[in-house]
Protein backbone atom coordinates (compact mmCIF):
# COMPACT_ATOMS: atom_id res chain seq x y z
CA UNK A 1 0.00 0.00 0.00
CA UNK A 2 1.45 3.37 -1.01
CA UNK A 3 1.73 6.23 1.46
CA UNK A 4 -1.10 8.13 -0.21
CA UNK A 5 -3.38 5.11 0.06
CA UNK A 6 -2.40 4.59 3.69
CA UNK A 7 -3.25 8.17 4.58
CA UNK A 8 -6.57 7.84 2.76
CA UNK A 9 -7.40 4.71 4.73
CA UNK A 10 -6.67 6.55 7.97
CA UNK A 11 -8.96 9.42 7.01
CA UNK A 12 -11.77 7.01 6.15
CA UNK A 13 -11.28 5.43 9.57
CA UNK A 14 -11.40 8.83 11.30
CA UNK A 15 -14.64 9.74 9.58
CA UNK A 16 -16.12 6.36 10.39
CA UNK A 17 -16.29 7.39 14.03
CA UNK A 18 -18.83 10.12 13.43
CA UNK A 19 -22.50 9.42 14.01
CA UNK A 20 -23.98 12.49 12.39
CA UNK A 21 -23.30 15.41 10.09
CA UNK A 22 -22.71 17.79 12.98
CA UNK A 23 -19.74 15.85 14.29
CA UNK A 24 -18.37 15.58 10.79
CA UNK A 25 -18.75 19.30 10.15
CA UNK A 26 -17.25 20.19 13.51
CA UNK A 27 -14.26 18.01 12.65
CA UNK A 28 -13.89 19.79 9.29
CA UNK A 29 -14.03 23.15 11.07
CA UNK A 30 -11.30 21.97 13.46
CA UNK A 31 -9.16 20.75 10.55
CA UNK A 32 -9.67 24.09 8.83
CA UNK A 33 -8.60 25.99 11.92
CA UNK A 34 -5.53 23.79 12.38
CA UNK A 35 -4.32 23.98 8.77
CA UNK A 36 -0.75 25.30 8.65
CA UNK A 37 -1.01 28.79 7.23
CA UNK A 38 0.14 29.59 3.73
CA UNK A 39 2.88 32.23 3.61
CA UNK A 40 1.34 35.64 2.98
CA UNK A 41 3.59 36.15 -0.06
CA UNK A 42 1.99 33.12 -1.72
CA UNK A 43 -1.57 34.43 -1.38
CA UNK A 44 -1.30 35.93 -4.82
CA UNK A 45 -3.72 36.33 -7.68
CA UNK A 46 -1.76 33.61 -9.54
CA UNK A 47 -2.29 31.13 -6.73
CA UNK A 48 -5.96 31.97 -6.33
CA UNK A 49 -8.62 29.52 -7.43
CA UNK A 50 -11.84 31.44 -7.72
CA UNK A 51 -14.96 29.51 -6.90
CA UNK A 52 -18.36 31.08 -7.11
CA UNK A 53 -18.91 30.38 -3.42
CA UNK A 54 -15.52 30.36 -1.77
CA UNK A 55 -11.93 31.03 -2.74
CA UNK A 56 -8.89 28.78 -2.42
CA UNK A 57 -5.21 29.67 -2.60
CA UNK A 58 -2.75 26.92 -3.49
CA UNK A 59 1.03 27.09 -3.55
CA UNK A 60 3.35 24.27 -4.61
CA UNK A 61 7.06 23.82 -3.99
CA UNK A 62 9.21 21.05 -5.43
CA UNK A 63 11.94 20.07 -3.01
CA UNK A 64 14.04 16.90 -2.62
CA UNK A 65 11.86 14.96 -5.04
CA UNK A 66 8.63 15.85 -3.27
CA UNK A 67 5.96 18.47 -3.65
CA UNK A 68 5.03 20.53 -0.63
CA UNK A 69 1.57 22.08 -0.96
CA UNK A 70 0.38 24.94 1.23
CA UNK A 71 -3.11 26.36 0.89
CA UNK A 72 -5.83 28.50 2.38
CA UNK A 73 -9.50 29.31 1.88
CA UNK A 74 -11.74 32.16 3.00
CA UNK A 75 -14.49 29.70 4.04
CA UNK A 76 -13.68 27.47 6.99
CA UNK A 77 -15.59 24.41 5.77
CA UNK A 78 -13.77 24.59 2.45
CA UNK A 79 -10.53 25.06 4.37
CA UNK A 80 -11.24 21.88 6.32
CA UNK A 81 -11.47 19.89 3.11
CA UNK A 82 -8.39 21.69 1.79
CA UNK A 83 -6.58 20.47 4.91
CA UNK A 84 -7.56 16.87 4.15
CA UNK A 85 -6.36 17.14 0.56
CA UNK A 86 -3.06 18.62 1.73
CA UNK A 87 -2.74 15.81 4.24
CA UNK A 88 -3.18 13.27 1.45
CA UNK A 89 -1.19 14.83 -1.37
CA UNK A 90 1.45 17.08 0.14
CA UNK A 91 4.97 15.87 0.80
CA UNK A 92 4.61 13.13 -1.82
CA UNK A 93 6.50 12.34 -5.00
CA UNK A 94 5.12 14.01 -8.15
CA UNK A 95 4.51 10.64 -9.81
CA UNK A 96 2.47 9.37 -6.86
CA UNK A 97 0.41 12.55 -6.74
CA UNK A 98 -0.26 12.48 -10.46
CA UNK A 99 -1.51 8.89 -10.37
CA UNK A 100 -3.28 9.02 -6.99
CA UNK A 101 -6.88 7.83 -6.93
CA UNK A 102 -8.84 9.84 -4.42
CA UNK A 103 -11.42 7.19 -3.56
CA UNK A 104 -11.67 8.32 0.05
CA UNK A 105 -13.75 11.34 -0.94
CA UNK A 106 -16.74 9.11 -1.68
CA UNK A 107 -16.17 6.98 1.37
CA UNK A 108 -16.20 9.87 3.85
CA UNK A 109 -19.38 11.27 2.34
CA UNK A 110 -17.92 14.50 1.00
CA UNK A 111 -18.52 13.76 -2.65
CA UNK A 112 -21.09 16.53 -2.99
CA UNK A 113 -18.60 19.01 -1.56
CA UNK A 114 -16.20 18.10 -4.31
CA UNK A 115 -18.62 18.29 -7.18
CA UNK A 116 -18.23 21.05 -9.78
CA UNK A 117 -21.74 22.33 -9.02
CA UNK A 118 -20.63 23.40 -5.55
CA UNK A 119 -18.35 25.97 -7.14
CA UNK A 120 -16.27 26.20 -3.99
CA UNK A 121 -12.93 25.92 -5.77
CA UNK A 122 -12.13 22.42 -4.53
CA UNK A 123 -12.50 20.60 -7.84
CA UNK A 124 -10.13 23.07 -9.46
CA UNK A 125 -7.79 22.69 -6.51
CA UNK A 126 -7.44 18.93 -7.04
CA UNK A 127 -6.95 19.47 -10.75
CA UNK A 128 -4.27 22.06 -10.06
CA UNK A 129 -2.46 19.78 -7.58
CA UNK A 130 -2.36 17.06 -10.22
CA UNK A 131 -1.14 19.50 -12.87
CA UNK A 132 1.70 20.62 -10.61
CA UNK A 133 2.59 16.97 -10.10
CA UNK A 134 2.66 16.29 -13.83
CA UNK A 135 4.72 19.43 -14.46
CA UNK A 136 7.28 18.60 -11.74
CA UNK A 137 7.45 14.98 -12.87
CA UNK A 138 8.74 15.97 -16.30
Amino acid at each position, binding site marked *: MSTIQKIQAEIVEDFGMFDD*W*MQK*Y*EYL*IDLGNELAPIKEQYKTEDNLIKG*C*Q*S*RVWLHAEHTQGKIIFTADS*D*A*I*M*TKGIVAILINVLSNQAPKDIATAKLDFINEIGLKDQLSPTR*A*NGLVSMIKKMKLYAIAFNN
Partner: protein
Amino acid sequence: MLDISKIRKQFPILSTKVNGENLVYFDNGATTQKPQSVITAESNYYQNENSNVHRGVHFLSGLATDKFEETRITIQNFIGAKHSHEIIFTKGTTDSINIVASGYRTLLNKGDEIIISELEHHSNIVPWQMCCEQSGATLKVIPLLDNGSLDMIAFENFLSENTKLVSVSHISNTLGTINPIEKIIEKAQAVGAKVMIDGAQAAAHISLNMQSLGADFYCFSAHKLYGPTGVGILYGKEDVLNELPPYQGGGEMIKEVSFKKTTYACLPHKFEAGTPNIAGVVAFKSAIDFITELGLSNIAKYEEELLQYATEEVLKIEGLKIYGTAKNKSGIISFNINELHPYDIGMIVDKMGIAIRTGHHCTQPIMERFNIPGTARISLAVYNTKEEIDICISALKKAKMMLS
Protein backbone atom coordinates in the same frame (compact mmCIF):
# COMPACT_ATOMS: atom_id res chain seq x y z
CA MET B 1 -56.66 37.07 4.33
CA LEU B 2 -54.70 34.31 2.67
CA ASP B 3 -54.96 30.76 3.97
CA ILE B 4 -51.27 29.90 3.87
CA SER B 5 -51.63 26.26 4.89
CA LYS B 6 -54.08 25.78 2.04
CA ILE B 7 -51.66 27.49 -0.34
CA ARG B 8 -48.80 25.28 0.85
CA LYS B 9 -50.81 22.16 0.06
CA GLN B 10 -50.78 23.17 -3.60
CA PHE B 11 -46.98 22.84 -3.71
CA PRO B 12 -45.99 19.15 -3.63
CA ILE B 13 -42.28 19.87 -3.15
CA LEU B 14 -42.88 21.73 0.12
CA SER B 15 -43.48 18.43 1.92
CA THR B 16 -39.98 17.23 0.99
CA LYS B 17 -37.66 16.13 3.79
CA VAL B 18 -34.06 17.29 3.62
CA ASN B 19 -31.64 15.36 5.85
CA GLY B 20 -34.69 14.16 7.73
CA GLU B 21 -35.93 17.70 8.40
CA ASN B 22 -38.86 19.53 6.86
CA LEU B 23 -37.71 21.60 3.92
CA VAL B 24 -37.67 25.34 4.59
CA TYR B 25 -37.37 26.94 1.19
CA PHE B 26 -36.00 30.48 1.38
CA ASP B 27 -34.36 30.67 -2.04
CA ASN B 28 -37.33 32.12 -3.87
CA GLY B 29 -35.28 34.92 -5.37
CA ALA B 30 -33.45 32.26 -7.37
CA THR B 31 -36.60 30.40 -8.32
CA THR B 32 -39.97 29.74 -6.72
CA GLN B 33 -41.55 26.33 -6.31
CA LYS B 34 -44.45 25.33 -8.58
CA PRO B 35 -48.05 24.68 -7.64
CA GLN B 36 -49.71 21.46 -8.81
CA SER B 37 -51.74 23.42 -11.39
CA VAL B 38 -48.55 24.48 -13.19
CA ILE B 39 -47.05 20.99 -13.07
CA THR B 40 -50.31 19.50 -14.40
CA ALA B 41 -50.61 22.10 -17.18
CA GLU B 42 -47.12 21.32 -18.42
CA SER B 43 -47.62 17.55 -18.48
CA ASN B 44 -51.16 17.85 -19.79
CA TYR B 45 -49.84 19.83 -22.72
CA TYR B 46 -47.59 16.98 -23.76
CA GLN B 47 -50.22 14.38 -23.03
CA ASN B 48 -53.16 15.98 -24.83
CA GLU B 49 -52.28 19.14 -26.72
CA ASN B 50 -48.78 18.84 -28.17
CA SER B 51 -48.24 20.26 -31.64
CA ASN B 52 -46.28 23.10 -33.18
CA VAL B 53 -47.81 26.57 -33.00
CA HIS B 54 -48.85 28.97 -35.77
CA ARG B 55 -48.01 26.46 -38.48
CA GLY B 56 -50.40 23.61 -39.00
CA VAL B 57 -53.91 23.45 -40.33
CA HIS B 58 -54.71 20.41 -38.28
CA PHE B 59 -56.70 20.13 -35.06
CA LEU B 60 -53.83 19.80 -32.60
CA SER B 61 -51.84 22.64 -34.10
CA GLY B 62 -54.87 24.86 -33.71
CA LEU B 63 -55.34 23.75 -30.12
CA ALA B 64 -51.68 24.34 -29.22
CA THR B 65 -51.75 27.75 -30.87
CA ASP B 66 -54.91 28.73 -28.99
CA LYS B 67 -53.38 27.68 -25.67
CA PHE B 68 -50.15 29.50 -26.47
CA GLU B 69 -51.93 32.71 -27.41
CA GLU B 70 -54.23 32.46 -24.39
CA THR B 71 -51.15 32.89 -22.20
CA ARG B 72 -50.16 35.99 -24.13
CA ILE B 73 -53.54 37.56 -23.44
CA THR B 74 -53.42 36.49 -19.79
CA ILE B 75 -50.05 38.24 -19.45
CA GLN B 76 -51.33 41.29 -21.29
CA ASN B 77 -54.05 41.60 -18.65
CA PHE B 78 -51.68 40.71 -15.83
CA ILE B 79 -49.32 43.59 -16.63
CA GLY B 80 -51.85 46.00 -18.10
CA ALA B 81 -50.32 46.18 -21.57
CA LYS B 82 -52.23 47.96 -24.31
CA HIS B 83 -51.83 45.20 -26.92
CA SER B 84 -51.18 41.48 -26.65
CA HIS B 85 -48.59 41.72 -29.44
CA GLU B 86 -46.49 43.86 -27.11
CA ILE B 87 -45.75 40.64 -25.19
CA ILE B 88 -42.85 38.67 -26.63
CA PHE B 89 -42.20 35.18 -25.30
CA THR B 90 -38.54 34.64 -24.45
CA LYS B 91 -36.39 32.15 -22.54
CA GLY B 92 -36.43 34.40 -19.50
CA THR B 93 -35.32 37.77 -18.18
CA THR B 94 -31.72 37.37 -19.36
CA ASP B 95 -32.89 36.52 -22.86
CA SER B 96 -35.28 39.49 -22.85
CA ILE B 97 -32.53 41.94 -21.90
CA ASN B 98 -30.24 40.47 -24.53
CA ILE B 99 -32.89 40.92 -27.22
CA VAL B 100 -33.08 44.63 -26.46
CA ALA B 101 -29.34 45.13 -25.90
CA SER B 102 -28.55 43.29 -29.10
CA GLY B 103 -30.98 45.45 -31.05
CA TYR B 104 -29.46 48.61 -29.63
CA ARG B 105 -26.02 47.64 -30.90
CA THR B 106 -27.10 48.88 -34.29
CA LEU B 107 -29.27 51.73 -33.02
CA LEU B 108 -26.55 53.43 -30.97
CA ASN B 109 -23.43 55.33 -31.98
CA LYS B 110 -20.33 56.79 -30.40
CA GLY B 111 -21.30 59.58 -28.01
CA ASP B 112 -24.57 57.90 -27.01
CA GLU B 113 -24.96 56.86 -23.42
CA ILE B 114 -26.62 53.97 -21.60
CA ILE B 115 -27.33 54.23 -17.87
CA ILE B 116 -27.55 51.22 -15.57
CA SER B 117 -27.02 51.00 -11.81
CA GLU B 118 -24.56 49.53 -9.35
CA LEU B 119 -27.14 47.12 -7.95
CA GLU B 120 -27.91 45.31 -11.19
CA HIS B 121 -27.78 41.56 -11.68
CA HIS B 122 -24.99 40.58 -14.08
CA SER B 123 -27.74 39.94 -16.64
CA ASN B 124 -28.50 43.63 -16.66
CA ILE B 125 -24.83 44.64 -16.83
CA VAL B 126 -23.03 42.37 -19.29
CA PRO B 127 -25.46 42.70 -22.26
CA TRP B 128 -25.06 46.49 -22.03
CA GLN B 129 -21.27 46.24 -21.83
CA MET B 130 -21.40 44.13 -24.98
CA CYS B 131 -23.76 46.62 -26.58
CA CYS B 132 -21.41 49.52 -25.74
CA GLU B 133 -18.37 47.63 -27.00
CA GLN B 134 -19.95 47.11 -30.39
CA SER B 135 -21.79 50.42 -30.79
CA GLY B 136 -19.18 52.73 -29.26
CA ALA B 137 -21.73 54.02 -26.73
CA THR B 138 -20.69 54.76 -23.13
CA LEU B 139 -22.01 52.97 -20.05
CA LYS B 140 -22.80 55.05 -16.97
CA VAL B 141 -23.50 53.48 -13.60
CA ILE B 142 -25.78 55.01 -10.96
CA PRO B 143 -23.97 54.53 -7.63
CA LEU B 144 -25.50 53.00 -4.53
CA LEU B 145 -26.03 54.72 -1.21
CA ASP B 146 -25.06 52.92 2.00
CA ASN B 147 -28.60 51.71 2.64
CA GLY B 148 -28.72 49.99 -0.75
CA SER B 149 -30.85 52.55 -2.55
CA LEU B 150 -29.89 54.35 -5.74
CA ASP B 151 -28.20 57.73 -5.65
CA MET B 152 -30.96 59.55 -7.52
CA ILE B 153 -29.05 62.85 -7.56
CA ALA B 154 -26.20 61.17 -9.42
CA PHE B 155 -28.77 59.62 -11.77
CA GLU B 156 -30.30 62.98 -12.62
CA ASN B 157 -26.84 64.44 -13.19
CA PHE B 158 -26.11 61.68 -15.70
CA LEU B 159 -29.15 62.49 -17.80
CA SER B 160 -28.57 64.49 -20.96
CA GLU B 161 -29.56 64.47 -24.60
CA ASN B 162 -26.87 61.81 -25.06
CA THR B 163 -28.78 59.39 -22.82
CA LYS B 164 -30.43 56.91 -25.15
CA LEU B 165 -31.35 54.13 -22.80
CA VAL B 166 -31.73 53.54 -19.07
CA SER B 167 -31.95 49.95 -17.81
CA VAL B 168 -32.52 49.31 -14.11
CA SER B 169 -34.09 46.58 -12.07
CA HIS B 170 -37.43 47.07 -10.39
CA ILE B 171 -36.24 45.19 -7.30
CA SER B 172 -32.65 44.29 -6.40
CA ASN B 173 -32.21 40.52 -6.17
CA THR B 174 -29.48 40.96 -3.57
CA LEU B 175 -30.58 43.90 -1.46
CA GLY B 176 -34.35 43.80 -1.90
CA THR B 177 -34.44 47.51 -2.68
CA ILE B 178 -37.54 48.57 -4.61
CA ASN B 179 -36.22 51.18 -6.99
CA PRO B 180 -38.23 54.35 -7.71
CA ILE B 181 -38.84 53.27 -11.30
CA GLU B 182 -41.76 55.67 -11.85
CA LYS B 183 -39.42 58.59 -11.21
CA ILE B 184 -36.60 57.02 -13.24
CA ILE B 185 -38.93 56.52 -16.21
CA GLU B 186 -40.28 60.04 -15.98
CA LYS B 187 -36.86 61.72 -15.75
CA ALA B 188 -35.26 59.54 -18.44
CA GLN B 189 -38.09 59.94 -20.91
CA ALA B 190 -37.97 63.70 -20.34
CA VAL B 191 -34.55 63.74 -22.05
CA GLY B 192 -35.79 61.44 -24.81
CA ALA B 193 -34.27 58.20 -23.49
CA LYS B 194 -35.98 54.83 -23.57
CA VAL B 195 -36.30 52.89 -20.33
CA MET B 196 -36.01 49.17 -19.73
CA ILE B 197 -37.04 47.68 -16.40
CA ASP B 198 -35.74 44.28 -15.26
CA GLY B 199 -38.73 43.00 -13.34
CA ALA B 200 -37.36 39.53 -12.51
CA GLN B 201 -37.76 40.05 -8.76
CA ALA B 202 -40.89 42.17 -8.97
CA ALA B 203 -43.54 40.49 -11.08
CA ALA B 204 -44.56 37.96 -8.40
CA HIS B 205 -44.66 40.57 -5.66
CA ILE B 206 -45.88 43.91 -7.02
CA SER B 207 -48.89 44.51 -9.22
CA LEU B 208 -47.97 46.00 -12.58
CA ASN B 209 -49.64 48.24 -15.10
CA MET B 210 -47.56 48.98 -18.17
CA GLN B 211 -49.87 51.68 -19.46
CA SER B 212 -49.71 53.78 -16.32
CA LEU B 213 -46.04 52.94 -15.66
CA GLY B 214 -45.00 53.97 -19.16
CA ALA B 215 -41.81 51.86 -19.33
CA ASP B 216 -40.61 51.27 -22.88
CA PHE B 217 -39.48 47.73 -22.01
CA TYR B 218 -40.25 45.50 -19.06
CA CYS B 219 -39.26 41.86 -18.61
CA PHE B 220 -39.47 38.95 -16.21
CA SER B 221 -39.16 35.16 -15.99
CA ALA B 222 -41.98 32.69 -15.38
CA HIS B 223 -39.94 30.58 -12.96
CA LYS B 224 -39.68 33.34 -10.40
CA LEU B 225 -43.46 33.62 -10.28
CA TYR B 226 -44.42 30.02 -9.64
CA GLY B 227 -44.15 29.09 -13.33
CA PRO B 228 -41.85 26.82 -15.34
CA THR B 229 -38.19 27.49 -16.12
CA GLY B 230 -37.05 28.49 -19.58
CA VAL B 231 -39.87 30.91 -20.26
CA GLY B 232 -40.18 34.63 -19.77
CA ILE B 233 -41.49 37.71 -21.45
CA LEU B 234 -40.28 40.90 -22.95
CA TYR B 235 -42.87 43.64 -22.94
CA GLY B 236 -42.22 46.56 -25.25
CA LYS B 237 -44.34 49.44 -26.39
CA GLU B 238 -45.59 48.72 -29.89
CA ASP B 239 -43.73 51.56 -31.63
CA VAL B 240 -40.52 50.87 -29.71
CA LEU B 241 -40.60 47.17 -30.59
CA ASN B 242 -41.26 48.02 -34.22
CA GLU B 243 -38.08 50.10 -34.28
CA LEU B 244 -35.99 47.39 -32.63
CA PRO B 245 -34.15 45.14 -35.10
CA PRO B 246 -34.88 41.41 -34.76
CA TYR B 247 -32.58 39.36 -32.55
CA GLN B 248 -32.48 35.98 -34.21
CA GLY B 249 -33.40 34.91 -37.71
CA GLY B 250 -35.31 31.74 -38.44
CA GLY B 251 -38.76 30.26 -38.75
CA GLU B 252 -41.84 32.13 -37.58
CA MET B 253 -40.15 35.57 -37.58
CA ILE B 254 -40.35 36.17 -41.32
CA LYS B 255 -42.91 37.63 -43.67
CA GLU B 256 -41.25 36.62 -46.91
CA VAL B 257 -37.91 34.96 -47.57
CA SER B 258 -35.97 35.14 -50.79
CA PHE B 259 -32.27 35.29 -51.54
CA LYS B 260 -32.66 38.87 -52.66
CA LYS B 261 -34.39 40.18 -49.56
CA THR B 262 -36.17 38.83 -46.54
CA THR B 263 -38.84 40.81 -44.77
CA TYR B 264 -39.76 40.31 -41.17
CA ALA B 265 -43.02 39.30 -39.58
CA CYS B 266 -45.13 41.67 -37.51
CA LEU B 267 -45.10 41.77 -33.74
CA PRO B 268 -44.84 39.65 -31.72
CA HIS B 269 -43.52 37.01 -34.15
CA LYS B 270 -40.63 39.19 -35.32
CA PHE B 271 -38.89 38.34 -32.03
CA GLU B 272 -40.02 34.74 -31.72
CA ALA B 273 -37.80 32.83 -34.15
CA GLY B 274 -37.89 29.06 -33.93
CA THR B 275 -40.21 26.75 -32.08
CA PRO B 276 -40.76 28.24 -28.64
CA ASN B 277 -41.10 26.49 -25.29
CA ILE B 278 -44.80 25.86 -25.93
CA ALA B 279 -45.38 23.64 -22.90
CA GLY B 280 -43.71 26.24 -20.70
CA VAL B 281 -45.76 29.07 -22.14
CA VAL B 282 -48.99 27.08 -21.66
CA ALA B 283 -48.08 26.32 -18.03
CA PHE B 284 -47.07 29.96 -17.50
CA LYS B 285 -50.78 30.82 -17.71
CA SER B 286 -51.53 28.54 -14.77
CA ALA B 287 -48.87 30.35 -12.76
CA ILE B 288 -50.42 33.73 -13.52
CA ASP B 289 -53.85 32.31 -12.68
CA PHE B 290 -52.47 31.08 -9.35
CA ILE B 291 -51.24 34.60 -8.50
CA THR B 292 -54.36 36.33 -9.78
CA GLU B 293 -56.62 34.07 -7.73
CA LEU B 294 -54.72 34.93 -4.55
CA GLY B 295 -54.53 38.58 -5.52
CA LEU B 296 -51.20 40.36 -5.85
CA SER B 297 -52.17 42.94 -3.23
CA ASN B 298 -52.91 40.14 -0.73
CA ILE B 299 -49.59 38.50 -1.60
CA ALA B 300 -47.71 41.79 -1.20
CA LYS B 301 -49.36 42.48 2.14
CA TYR B 302 -48.55 39.03 3.51
CA GLU B 303 -44.96 39.10 2.26
CA GLU B 304 -44.48 42.54 3.79
CA GLU B 305 -45.60 41.13 7.12
CA LEU B 306 -43.18 38.19 6.74
CA LEU B 307 -40.32 40.52 5.78
CA GLN B 308 -40.91 42.71 8.80
CA TYR B 309 -41.03 39.71 11.13
CA ALA B 310 -37.95 38.08 9.57
CA THR B 311 -36.00 41.35 9.72
CA GLU B 312 -36.80 41.88 13.39
CA GLU B 313 -35.95 38.29 14.26
CA VAL B 314 -32.65 37.99 12.36
CA LEU B 315 -31.46 41.23 13.89
CA LYS B 316 -31.73 39.57 17.31
CA ILE B 317 -28.74 37.42 16.31
CA GLU B 318 -25.75 39.21 17.72
CA GLY B 319 -23.24 40.30 15.10
CA LEU B 320 -25.69 39.96 12.20
CA LYS B 321 -25.62 42.74 9.67
CA ILE B 322 -28.22 43.24 6.96
CA TYR B 323 -27.11 44.59 3.58
CA GLY B 324 -29.91 46.57 2.00
CA THR B 325 -31.94 48.62 4.43
CA ALA B 326 -33.75 50.89 2.02
CA LYS B 327 -37.11 52.17 3.20
CA ASN B 328 -38.91 50.60 0.30
CA LYS B 329 -37.99 46.90 0.31
CA SER B 330 -39.25 43.58 -1.00
CA GLY B 331 -38.98 40.20 0.79
CA ILE B 332 -35.23 39.76 0.48
CA ILE B 333 -32.79 39.82 3.39
CA SER B 334 -29.07 39.68 2.63
CA PHE B 335 -26.84 39.35 5.66
CA ASN B 336 -23.56 38.31 7.18
CA ILE B 337 -22.83 37.26 10.75
CA ASN B 338 -19.64 38.78 12.13
CA GLU B 339 -16.72 37.67 9.96
CA LEU B 340 -18.23 34.26 9.22
CA HIS B 341 -18.18 33.20 5.58
CA PRO B 342 -21.68 32.96 4.09
CA TYR B 343 -20.77 29.65 2.42
CA ASP B 344 -20.09 28.06 5.80
CA ILE B 345 -23.40 29.31 7.14
CA GLY B 346 -25.26 28.06 4.07
CA MET B 347 -23.69 24.62 4.31
CA ILE B 348 -24.60 24.16 7.94
CA VAL B 349 -28.22 25.36 7.72
CA ASP B 350 -28.64 23.16 4.63
CA LYS B 351 -28.06 20.15 6.87
CA MET B 352 -31.01 21.37 8.92
CA GLY B 353 -33.25 21.43 5.86
CA ILE B 354 -33.01 25.14 5.15
CA ALA B 355 -32.43 26.39 1.63
CA ILE B 356 -30.87 29.83 1.57
CA ARG B 357 -28.65 31.32 -1.07
CA THR B 358 -25.04 32.22 -0.41
CA GLY B 359 -22.46 33.97 -2.52
CA HIS B 360 -22.42 37.07 -4.66
CA HIS B 361 -25.88 36.45 -6.17
CA CYS B 362 -24.58 37.41 -9.63
CA THR B 363 -24.08 40.95 -8.36
CA GLN B 364 -20.33 41.23 -7.87
CA PRO B 365 -20.34 45.06 -8.06
CA ILE B 366 -22.57 45.15 -4.96
CA MET B 367 -20.11 42.90 -3.11
CA GLU B 368 -17.30 45.20 -4.12
CA ARG B 369 -19.32 48.24 -3.03
CA PHE B 370 -19.75 46.80 0.47
CA ASN B 371 -16.33 45.11 0.45
CA ILE B 372 -17.62 41.62 1.29
CA PRO B 373 -17.04 38.22 -0.37
CA GLY B 374 -20.75 37.49 -0.45
CA THR B 375 -23.83 37.33 1.71
CA ALA B 376 -26.32 34.78 2.90
CA ARG B 377 -29.75 35.58 1.51
CA ILE B 378 -33.26 34.76 2.61
CA SER B 379 -35.83 35.46 -0.09
CA LEU B 380 -39.50 34.98 0.65
CA ALA B 381 -42.55 33.77 -1.24
CA VAL B 382 -46.23 33.58 -0.45
CA TYR B 383 -46.03 30.00 0.90
CA ASN B 384 -43.45 30.84 3.57
CA THR B 385 -44.48 31.14 7.20
CA LYS B 386 -43.37 32.75 10.44
CA GLU B 387 -42.72 29.27 11.82
CA GLU B 388 -40.23 28.70 9.02
CA ILE B 389 -38.53 31.97 9.89
CA ASP B 390 -38.24 30.78 13.51
CA ILE B 391 -36.70 27.47 12.36
CA CYS B 392 -34.25 29.36 10.19
CA ILE B 393 -33.25 31.71 13.02
CA SER B 394 -32.48 28.83 15.37
CA ALA B 395 -30.48 27.11 12.60
CA LEU B 396 -28.52 30.32 12.02
CA LYS B 397 -27.77 30.53 15.73
CA LYS B 398 -26.52 26.94 15.69
CA ALA B 399 -24.34 27.66 12.65
CA LYS B 400 -22.93 30.72 14.38
CA MET B 401 -22.13 28.64 17.46
CA MET B 402 -20.41 25.92 15.42
CA LEU B 403 -18.37 28.39 13.42
CA SER B 404 -17.36 30.81 16.18
